[in-house]
Protein backbone atom coordinates (compact mmCIF):
# COMPACT_ATOMS: atom_id res chain seq x y z
CA UNK A 1 0.00 0.00 0.00
CA UNK A 2 1.33 3.41 -0.97
CA UNK A 3 1.83 5.75 1.93
CA UNK A 4 0.51 9.33 1.94
CA UNK A 5 4.00 10.83 1.58
CA UNK A 6 4.74 8.61 -1.40
CA UNK A 7 1.48 9.70 -3.04
CA UNK A 8 2.35 13.36 -2.44
CA UNK A 9 5.77 12.83 -3.94
CA UNK A 10 4.22 11.19 -6.99
CA UNK A 11 1.78 14.06 -7.51
CA UNK A 12 4.49 16.67 -7.07
CA UNK A 13 6.80 14.89 -9.52
CA UNK A 14 3.96 14.56 -12.05
CA UNK A 15 3.13 18.26 -11.79
CA UNK A 16 6.79 19.18 -12.05
CA UNK A 17 7.36 16.98 -15.06
CA UNK A 18 4.36 18.56 -16.78
CA UNK A 19 5.92 22.00 -16.45
CA UNK A 20 9.53 20.99 -17.01
CA UNK A 21 9.09 18.70 -20.03
CA UNK A 22 8.31 21.55 -22.51
CA UNK A 23 11.65 23.10 -21.58
CA UNK A 24 13.34 20.00 -23.01
CA UNK A 25 10.85 19.18 -25.75
CA UNK A 26 10.57 22.69 -27.25
CA UNK A 27 14.30 23.14 -27.89
CA UNK A 28 14.37 19.68 -29.46
CA UNK A 29 11.48 20.72 -31.69
CA UNK A 30 13.15 24.03 -32.45
CA UNK A 31 16.47 22.39 -33.20
CA UNK A 32 14.66 19.93 -35.51
CA UNK A 33 13.10 22.85 -37.31
CA UNK A 34 16.40 24.70 -37.54
CA UNK A 35 18.18 21.61 -38.76
CA UNK A 36 15.51 20.92 -41.42
CA UNK A 37 15.56 24.56 -42.49
CA UNK A 38 19.33 24.51 -42.84
CA UNK A 39 19.29 21.24 -44.84
CA UNK A 40 16.57 22.61 -47.14
CA UNK A 41 18.44 25.88 -47.72
CA UNK A 42 21.58 23.92 -48.47
CA UNK A 43 19.60 21.77 -50.94
CA UNK A 44 18.23 24.95 -52.57
CA UNK A 45 21.80 26.18 -53.10
CA UNK A 46 22.99 22.86 -54.51
CA UNK A 47 20.03 22.64 -56.90
CA UNK A 48 20.63 26.23 -58.05
CA UNK A 49 24.30 25.62 -58.72
CA UNK A 50 23.49 22.32 -60.48
CA UNK A 51 21.00 24.22 -62.66
CA UNK A 52 23.68 26.80 -63.48
CA UNK A 53 26.13 24.03 -64.39
CA UNK A 54 23.49 22.41 -66.64
CA UNK A 55 22.82 25.75 -68.34
CA UNK A 56 26.53 26.21 -69.02
CA UNK A 57 26.73 22.71 -70.47
CA UNK A 58 23.70 23.48 -72.61
CA UNK A 59 25.29 26.71 -73.86
CA UNK A 60 28.44 24.75 -74.74
CA UNK A 61 26.23 22.54 -76.91
CA UNK A 62 25.81 19.44 -74.73
CA UNK A 63 22.61 17.42 -74.76
CA UNK A 64 21.29 18.04 -71.26
CA UNK A 65 17.97 16.16 -71.46
CA UNK A 66 19.18 13.39 -69.14
CA UNK A 67 20.55 15.89 -66.63
CA UNK A 68 17.27 17.84 -66.62
CA UNK A 69 15.32 14.64 -65.97
CA UNK A 70 17.46 13.99 -62.90
CA UNK A 71 17.18 17.59 -61.78
CA UNK A 72 13.41 17.21 -62.00
CA UNK A 73 13.70 14.28 -59.63
CA UNK A 74 15.74 16.46 -57.27
CA UNK A 75 13.15 19.22 -57.66
CA UNK A 76 10.38 16.82 -56.62
CA UNK A 77 12.30 15.97 -53.45
CA UNK A 78 12.93 19.65 -52.74
CA UNK A 79 9.27 20.59 -53.24
CA UNK A 80 8.33 17.66 -50.99
CA UNK A 81 10.79 18.92 -48.38
CA UNK A 82 9.17 22.36 -48.36
CA UNK A 83 5.67 20.89 -48.08
CA UNK A 84 6.75 18.64 -45.19
CA UNK A 85 8.50 21.57 -43.51
CA UNK A 86 5.39 23.75 -43.67
CA UNK A 87 3.38 20.89 -42.17
CA UNK A 88 5.89 20.56 -39.31
CA UNK A 89 7.29 17.20 -40.38
CA UNK A 90 10.92 18.28 -40.04
CA UNK A 91 12.38 14.80 -40.18
CA UNK A 92 10.75 14.09 -43.54
CA UNK A 93 11.71 17.58 -44.74
CA UNK A 94 15.37 16.99 -43.90
CA UNK A 95 15.33 13.51 -45.45
CA UNK A 96 13.82 14.78 -48.74
CA UNK A 97 16.21 17.75 -48.85
CA UNK A 98 19.20 15.44 -48.33
CA UNK A 99 18.08 13.22 -51.21
CA UNK A 100 17.68 16.33 -53.34
CA UNK A 101 21.21 17.51 -52.50
CA UNK A 102 22.64 14.09 -53.32
CA UNK A 103 21.08 14.00 -56.79
CA UNK A 104 21.87 17.65 -57.51
CA UNK A 105 25.51 17.24 -56.53
CA UNK A 106 25.98 14.35 -58.97
CA UNK A 107 24.15 16.29 -61.71
CA UNK A 108 26.42 19.28 -61.09
CA UNK A 109 29.58 17.19 -61.42
CA UNK A 110 28.33 15.45 -64.55
CA UNK A 111 27.24 18.76 -66.09
CA UNK A 112 30.75 20.13 -65.55
CA UNK A 113 32.28 17.16 -67.36
CA UNK A 114 29.75 17.42 -70.18
CA UNK A 115 30.43 21.14 -70.55
CA UNK A 116 34.19 20.57 -70.96
CA UNK A 117 33.55 17.76 -73.45
CA UNK A 118 31.00 19.78 -75.43
CA UNK A 119 33.21 22.86 -75.39
CA UNK A 120 36.13 20.83 -76.80
CA UNK A 121 33.89 19.44 -79.55
CA UNK A 122 32.57 22.91 -80.26
CA UNK A 123 36.06 24.40 -80.59
CA UNK A 124 37.05 21.53 -82.86
CA UNK A 125 33.93 22.06 -84.93
CA UNK A 126 34.57 25.77 -85.10
CA UNK A 127 38.09 25.29 -86.42
CA UNK A 128 36.89 22.67 -88.90
CA UNK A 129 34.18 25.01 -90.19
CA UNK A 130 36.56 27.94 -90.34
CA UNK A 131 39.20 25.92 -92.20
CA UNK A 132 36.54 24.67 -94.60
CA UNK A 133 35.30 28.19 -95.24
CA UNK A 134 38.83 29.53 -95.68
CA UNK A 135 39.75 26.80 -98.17
CA UNK A 136 36.46 27.46 -99.95
CA UNK A 137 37.06 31.22 -100.17
CA UNK A 138 40.62 30.71 -101.44
CA UNK A 139 39.31 28.23 -104.01
CA UNK A 140 36.66 30.71 -105.16
CA UNK A 141 39.22 33.55 -105.41
CA UNK A 142 41.66 31.36 -107.32
CA UNK A 143 38.94 29.92 -109.53
CA UNK A 144 37.56 33.37 -110.27
CA UNK A 145 41.02 34.68 -111.14
CA UNK A 146 41.79 31.77 -113.47
CA UNK A 147 38.29 31.83 -114.89
CA UNK A 148 38.52 35.55 -115.61
CA UNK A 149 41.90 35.13 -117.35
CA UNK A 150 40.53 32.34 -119.57
CA UNK A 151 37.38 34.31 -120.30
CA UNK A 152 39.35 37.43 -121.14
CA UNK A 153 41.68 35.52 -123.49
CA UNK A 154 38.75 33.95 -125.32
CA UNK A 155 37.03 37.29 -125.48
CA UNK A 156 40.06 38.93 -127.18
CA UNK A 157 40.48 35.97 -129.52
CA UNK A 158 36.86 36.23 -130.55
CA UNK A 159 37.19 39.97 -131.07
CA UNK A 160 40.39 39.59 -133.05
CA UNK A 161 38.76 36.96 -135.30
CA UNK A 162 36.00 39.36 -136.21
CA UNK A 163 36.34 40.87 -139.71
CA UNK A 164 35.61 44.50 -140.06
CA UNK A 165 32.62 45.14 -142.28
CA UNK A 166 32.83 47.91 -144.72
CA UNK A 167 29.59 49.48 -145.54
CA UNK A 168 29.22 51.72 -148.53
CA UNK A 169 28.60 55.30 -147.78
CA UNK A 170 25.45 56.70 -149.12
CA UNK A 171 26.29 60.31 -148.90
Amino acid at each position, binding site marked *: MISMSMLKLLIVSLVLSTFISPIFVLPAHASGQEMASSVINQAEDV*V*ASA*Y*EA*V*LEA*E*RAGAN*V*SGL*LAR*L*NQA*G*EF*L*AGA*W*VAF*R*LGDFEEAARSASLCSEISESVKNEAGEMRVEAYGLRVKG*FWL*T*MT*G*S*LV*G*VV*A*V*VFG*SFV*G*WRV*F*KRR*YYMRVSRMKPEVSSGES
Partner: protein
Amino acid sequence: MNLEECRTVFATGSLILMLIVAAPTLSLIVRFPGGIERFSELWVLGPDLMAQEYPFNIQVNSTYNIFVGMGNHMGASSYYLLDVKFRNQTQPLPDTLNSKPSPLPPLYEYKAFVKDGETWEKTLKFSVLEALLCDDSAFVSRISINDVVFSVNVSAKWDSEHKGFYYQLFFELWLYNLTARSFQFHNRFVWIWLNMTV
Protein backbone atom coordinates in the same frame (compact mmCIF):
# COMPACT_ATOMS: atom_id res chain seq x y z
CA MET B 1 28.09 43.03 -123.38
CA ASN B 2 31.53 44.67 -123.35
CA LEU B 3 34.52 43.50 -121.30
CA GLU B 4 33.95 46.01 -118.49
CA GLU B 5 30.40 44.78 -117.95
CA CYS B 6 31.57 41.16 -118.06
CA ARG B 7 34.15 41.95 -115.36
CA THR B 8 31.47 43.42 -113.08
CA VAL B 9 29.26 40.34 -113.50
CA PHE B 10 32.26 38.09 -112.82
CA ALA B 11 33.29 40.00 -109.69
CA THR B 12 29.73 40.05 -108.31
CA GLY B 13 29.29 36.32 -108.94
CA SER B 14 32.60 35.56 -107.20
CA LEU B 15 31.68 37.70 -104.22
CA ILE B 16 28.31 35.95 -103.81
CA LEU B 17 30.03 32.57 -104.07
CA MET B 18 32.56 33.65 -101.41
CA LEU B 19 29.79 34.72 -99.06
CA ILE B 20 28.00 31.39 -99.53
CA VAL B 21 31.20 29.47 -98.79
CA ALA B 22 31.98 31.63 -95.72
CA ALA B 23 28.37 31.54 -94.38
CA PRO B 24 28.92 28.63 -91.91
CA THR B 25 31.80 30.47 -90.24
CA LEU B 26 30.00 33.82 -90.31
CA SER B 27 26.99 32.26 -88.60
CA LEU B 28 29.26 31.17 -85.72
CA ILE B 29 30.77 34.63 -85.28
CA VAL B 30 28.03 37.10 -86.16
CA ARG B 31 24.91 37.04 -83.97
CA PHE B 32 21.90 38.89 -85.29
CA PRO B 33 19.58 40.33 -82.66
CA GLY B 34 16.54 38.06 -82.88
CA GLY B 35 13.01 39.35 -82.52
CA ILE B 36 11.93 36.13 -80.83
CA GLU B 37 9.46 36.60 -78.00
CA ARG B 38 10.46 34.83 -74.78
CA PHE B 39 7.58 33.50 -72.71
CA SER B 40 6.27 30.61 -70.64
CA GLU B 41 2.91 28.88 -70.88
CA LEU B 42 0.83 27.69 -67.96
CA TRP B 43 -2.36 25.67 -68.16
CA VAL B 44 -4.79 23.59 -66.21
CA LEU B 45 -6.75 20.79 -67.85
CA GLY B 46 -9.59 18.54 -66.82
CA PRO B 47 -9.29 14.85 -65.89
CA ASP B 48 -9.26 13.73 -69.55
CA LEU B 49 -6.46 16.15 -70.47
CA MET B 50 -8.90 18.48 -72.22
CA ALA B 51 -9.99 22.01 -71.39
CA GLN B 52 -13.38 20.70 -70.28
CA GLU B 53 -15.10 18.81 -67.47
CA TYR B 54 -13.17 20.60 -64.76
CA PRO B 55 -14.31 19.64 -61.27
CA PHE B 56 -16.78 22.30 -60.14
CA ASN B 57 -19.48 21.06 -57.75
CA ILE B 58 -17.34 19.39 -55.13
CA GLN B 59 -18.27 17.29 -52.12
CA VAL B 60 -16.47 16.27 -48.97
CA ASN B 61 -14.31 13.15 -49.30
CA SER B 62 -14.65 12.91 -53.08
CA THR B 63 -11.41 12.86 -55.06
CA TYR B 64 -10.91 15.01 -58.15
CA ASN B 65 -8.16 14.94 -60.75
CA ILE B 66 -6.87 17.75 -62.90
CA PHE B 67 -3.67 18.35 -64.86
CA VAL B 68 -1.33 21.31 -64.54
CA GLY B 69 1.28 22.01 -67.14
CA MET B 70 3.75 24.55 -68.39
CA GLY B 71 5.69 25.20 -71.57
CA ASN B 72 9.08 26.82 -71.85
CA HIS B 73 9.83 29.29 -74.66
CA MET B 74 12.51 31.24 -72.81
CA GLY B 75 15.37 30.36 -75.16
CA ALA B 76 17.13 28.11 -72.62
CA SER B 77 16.26 25.49 -70.03
CA SER B 78 14.32 27.09 -67.18
CA TYR B 79 13.79 26.32 -63.52
CA TYR B 80 10.17 26.84 -62.44
CA LEU B 81 8.28 26.84 -59.20
CA LEU B 82 4.54 26.24 -59.28
CA ASP B 83 2.69 27.20 -56.11
CA VAL B 84 -0.73 25.72 -55.41
CA LYS B 85 -2.98 28.03 -53.34
CA PHE B 86 -6.55 27.93 -52.11
CA ARG B 87 -8.82 30.93 -51.55
CA ASN B 88 -12.38 32.12 -51.21
CA GLN B 89 -13.91 34.87 -53.35
CA THR B 90 -12.68 37.71 -51.14
CA GLN B 91 -9.08 36.65 -50.59
CA PRO B 92 -6.48 38.24 -52.87
CA LEU B 93 -5.42 36.86 -56.23
CA PRO B 94 -2.03 37.67 -57.81
CA ASP B 95 -1.78 41.19 -59.18
CA THR B 96 -0.52 40.72 -62.72
CA LEU B 97 -0.55 44.46 -63.44
CA ASN B 98 2.12 45.00 -60.80
CA SER B 99 3.68 41.53 -61.08
CA LYS B 100 2.80 40.69 -57.48
CA PRO B 101 1.96 37.17 -56.34
CA SER B 102 -0.96 36.46 -54.04
CA PRO B 103 0.08 36.97 -50.38
CA LEU B 104 -1.68 33.71 -49.46
CA PRO B 105 0.68 30.95 -48.34
CA PRO B 106 1.25 28.10 -50.78
CA LEU B 107 -0.10 24.70 -49.83
CA TYR B 108 1.52 22.39 -52.30
CA GLU B 109 4.34 23.15 -54.72
CA TYR B 110 6.08 21.72 -57.76
CA LYS B 111 9.63 22.44 -58.84
CA ALA B 112 10.39 21.68 -62.47
CA PHE B 113 13.20 22.05 -64.96
CA VAL B 114 11.93 22.42 -68.51
CA LYS B 115 14.05 22.43 -71.65
CA ASP B 116 13.46 25.22 -74.16
CA GLY B 117 10.60 24.32 -76.49
CA GLU B 118 9.41 21.51 -74.25
CA THR B 119 6.52 21.10 -71.84
CA TRP B 120 5.98 19.70 -68.36
CA GLU B 121 2.71 18.27 -67.06
CA LYS B 122 1.61 16.64 -63.81
CA THR B 123 -1.60 15.30 -62.45
CA LEU B 124 -3.01 16.90 -59.32
CA LYS B 125 -5.38 14.94 -57.12
CA PHE B 126 -7.36 16.86 -54.54
CA SER B 127 -10.24 16.40 -52.16
CA VAL B 128 -11.96 18.34 -49.41
CA LEU B 129 -11.66 16.31 -46.23
CA GLU B 130 -13.56 18.51 -43.76
CA ALA B 131 -16.13 21.17 -44.43
CA LEU B 132 -19.14 22.67 -42.69
CA LEU B 133 -22.06 24.06 -44.64
CA CYS B 134 -24.65 26.34 -43.00
CA ASP B 135 -27.43 28.39 -44.54
CA ASP B 136 -25.33 31.29 -45.71
CA SER B 137 -21.75 30.18 -45.24
CA ALA B 138 -19.38 27.30 -45.75
CA PHE B 139 -16.18 26.52 -43.93
CA VAL B 140 -13.49 24.31 -45.42
CA SER B 141 -11.03 23.25 -42.76
CA ARG B 142 -8.95 20.51 -44.36
CA ILE B 143 -8.09 19.61 -47.92
CA SER B 144 -5.81 17.02 -49.41
CA ILE B 145 -3.57 17.61 -52.40
CA ASN B 146 -1.75 14.60 -53.86
CA ASP B 147 -2.43 12.73 -50.60
CA VAL B 148 -0.88 15.44 -48.43
CA VAL B 149 -3.34 16.89 -45.91
CA PHE B 150 -3.46 20.65 -45.30
CA SER B 151 -5.37 22.71 -42.75
CA VAL B 152 -6.80 25.63 -44.65
CA ASN B 153 -9.67 27.06 -42.57
CA VAL B 154 -11.28 29.12 -45.31
CA SER B 155 -14.86 30.28 -45.11
CA ALA B 156 -17.09 31.37 -47.96
CA LYS B 157 -20.31 33.35 -47.96
CA TRP B 158 -23.28 32.23 -50.02
CA ASP B 159 -23.03 33.86 -53.45
CA SER B 160 -26.66 34.67 -54.17
CA GLU B 161 -25.90 35.84 -57.70
CA HIS B 162 -24.18 32.63 -58.82
CA LYS B 163 -25.86 30.45 -56.22
CA GLY B 164 -23.01 28.67 -54.49
CA PHE B 165 -20.18 28.65 -51.97
CA TYR B 166 -17.26 29.53 -54.19
CA TYR B 167 -13.62 28.65 -53.67
CA GLN B 168 -10.70 28.78 -56.02
CA LEU B 169 -7.74 26.49 -56.43
CA PHE B 170 -5.09 28.47 -58.26
CA PHE B 171 -1.56 27.97 -59.50
CA GLU B 172 1.15 30.63 -59.55
CA LEU B 173 4.17 30.31 -61.80
CA TRP B 174 7.55 31.47 -60.55
CA LEU B 175 10.79 31.51 -62.53
CA TYR B 176 14.28 31.13 -61.10
CA ASN B 177 16.36 34.25 -61.73
CA LEU B 178 20.05 33.43 -62.06
CA THR B 179 21.17 36.98 -61.32
CA ALA B 180 19.06 37.37 -58.19
CA ARG B 181 19.61 33.69 -57.29
CA SER B 182 15.98 33.36 -56.25
CA PHE B 183 12.53 32.65 -57.65
CA GLN B 184 10.56 35.58 -59.02
CA PHE B 185 6.85 35.64 -59.78
CA HIS B 186 6.55 35.03 -63.52
CA ASN B 187 3.28 36.95 -63.73
CA ARG B 188 1.22 33.95 -64.74
CA PHE B 189 -1.48 32.12 -62.88
CA VAL B 190 -4.36 29.80 -63.70
CA TRP B 191 -7.27 28.62 -61.59
CA ILE B 192 -10.36 26.49 -61.31
CA TRP B 193 -13.53 27.53 -59.52
CA LEU B 194 -15.00 25.14 -57.00
CA ASN B 195 -18.50 25.20 -55.60
CA MET B 196 -18.74 23.46 -52.23
CA THR B 197 -21.87 21.35 -52.09
CA VAL B 198 -23.40 18.95 -49.59
